[in-house]
């Protein structure tokens, strides 16, 4: 029964070997010429203005999370809208239930002061 595991061992060996080979080989081949621009972090092509290690308000996370929640809600609505004719009343009720649950969460976050920017 153990012989069944040999292909897995080979798979692991090949995967690891490929990763190591790629890193080592590209390090050997590529030109080692560095300058200021090359060593700068790449930020979508825009020149970095300040140091990246800076303090910023933890509220950004809250806003980001709230954004993601309501963004994902929209993602669910698009496919629903496309086949709305087929789903008919059933689909409408289902979507209402879905939105209702989200609104409860929204109401909760609102009441807890998550939308206030201190």
């Amino acid at each position: 029964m153990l012989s069944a595991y040999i292909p897995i061992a080979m798979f692991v060996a090949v995967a690891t070997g490929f990763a190591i080979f790629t890193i080592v080989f590209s390090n050997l081949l590529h030109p080692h010429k560095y300058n200021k621009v090359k060593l700068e972090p790449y930020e979508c092509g825009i020149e970095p203005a300040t140091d990246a290690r800076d303090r910023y308000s933890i509220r950004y996370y809250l806003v980001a999370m709230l954004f993601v929640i309501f963004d994902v809600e929209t993602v669910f609505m698009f496919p629903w809208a496309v086949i709305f004719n087929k789903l008919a009343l059933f689909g409408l009720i289902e979507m209402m239930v879905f939105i209702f649950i989200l609104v409860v969460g929204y109401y909760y976050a609102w009441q807890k002061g998550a939308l206030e920017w201190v």
Partner: protein
Amino acid sequence: MPAGISTSDFYYILPELVLTAGALVVLIADVLLPKDRRAALSWVTLIALGATLASLAPFASTRVEIAHGLIAVDRFALFFKILFLVAAAITVLMSVRYLEVEGASPGEYYFLILCATLGMMIMAGGIDLVTIFIGLETMAVSFYILAGFIKPSQRSNEAAVKYFLLGAFSLGILLYGMSLMYGLSGTTNLRVMATRFAGQEQNPLLVLAVILVVAGVGFKIAAVPFHMWAPDVYEGAPTPITAFLSVGSKAASFAMLLRIFVEGLPAMSGDWRLLFYVLSIVTMTVGNFAAVTQSNLKRMLAYSSIAHAGYVLIGVVAGTARGVTATLIYLLVYSFMQLGAFAVIVLLRREDVVGDELKDFSGLHVRNPFAAFAMLLFMLSLGGIPPTAGFMGKFWLFSSAIDAGYYWLAVIGVLNSAVSLYYYVRVVVFMYLKKETIGSEPKATPALAVTLAIAVAATLILGVYPRLLFEVAEASARTLGMVPITTALR
């Protein structure tokens, strides 16, 4: 209505719908109730759990697949759902006082407990990899937050971060295994998968899938070598959450394990039996020997719960109807004794004492005889001494192993039980033989007294009169597709 979904589907998930509605009510009640009336939230939560339990009644002997085979409503799921709801209710009962002492506002706490319970119920009913995974995520995410609920406590924060990072990583491994299972069979439905894999020659990729899923599930049930998170998380998390985590999450993961392997991969039973055989022995032994050296009771119970996962795996290895029955019985029995032991720790938590160190138990029988007696009973039951429920549970587990021909597994299990007695009895020694006491009088609130009474009654009754539980568990186990006994490991 679209094809494949019918109104009756909604009827069959009625308990889950009731629980969801209850959770939403708790969430809204939290912001609507004035600050000094927040204690009522625990009542709302208990009512929600009770209503869900009542709504399970029509499905006592149902056996159907609904929504294109996403969810099964059968007695196996029912057994686990009742276990989860009872465990959640007991957790809520012991939480009230704990939150007061810690000075934490209940807030999302009860809502998250209900969400975790909902996730567990979906895991137990899921016969499709997607459903099972969604249930697992619902449960896991709730527990990540709950583990860190005592925000000023550094240990609680540490527990949450550790659990989250390791949990997310292990879910990734589990998901990789599941994706391979899907890729090889072309379906996510476990029962269809079983028929597709039947009679196929051995596929190394499928073996890899089995290994990955075993690793992912092994993390959730805290089996060695995937147990490293358990002691730290159990110690740091709020005590009621530790109790719920070690009981509910573990039972739900075992339900998932049985569904995936017994229902979905009977064709690979030689492989996963071998893996669980090894895991079971290692888990029992490491868990028990590590528990011996602990002086913090929450940590000790964490290692003990690791060891108990090892015992329960014996029933999975046996894989027979008897083995699965023993697994179900043990999970239920273990729930009561484990929840009870944690309830005593909650009782010892006072304004001036943390109450989870072994020395905090010294002289308890003088100051609170009932709590000391209850703890004595739970410790003996965890150690497997008759006439407690723990003895009956172990008896069935070991006899199912002997029945299926795994003699050594039973022998190692018995030897491990002997080792475990050392650290369980040590607690009893501290409670009954040591005289010096610490801090103020440990008094039980009505809710805690009820919790202890339920756990004591269950531990005694199931130990003295186990027949009813056996019949219920056996009927539940029979609804799971059974693996034929192979001779692979005889």
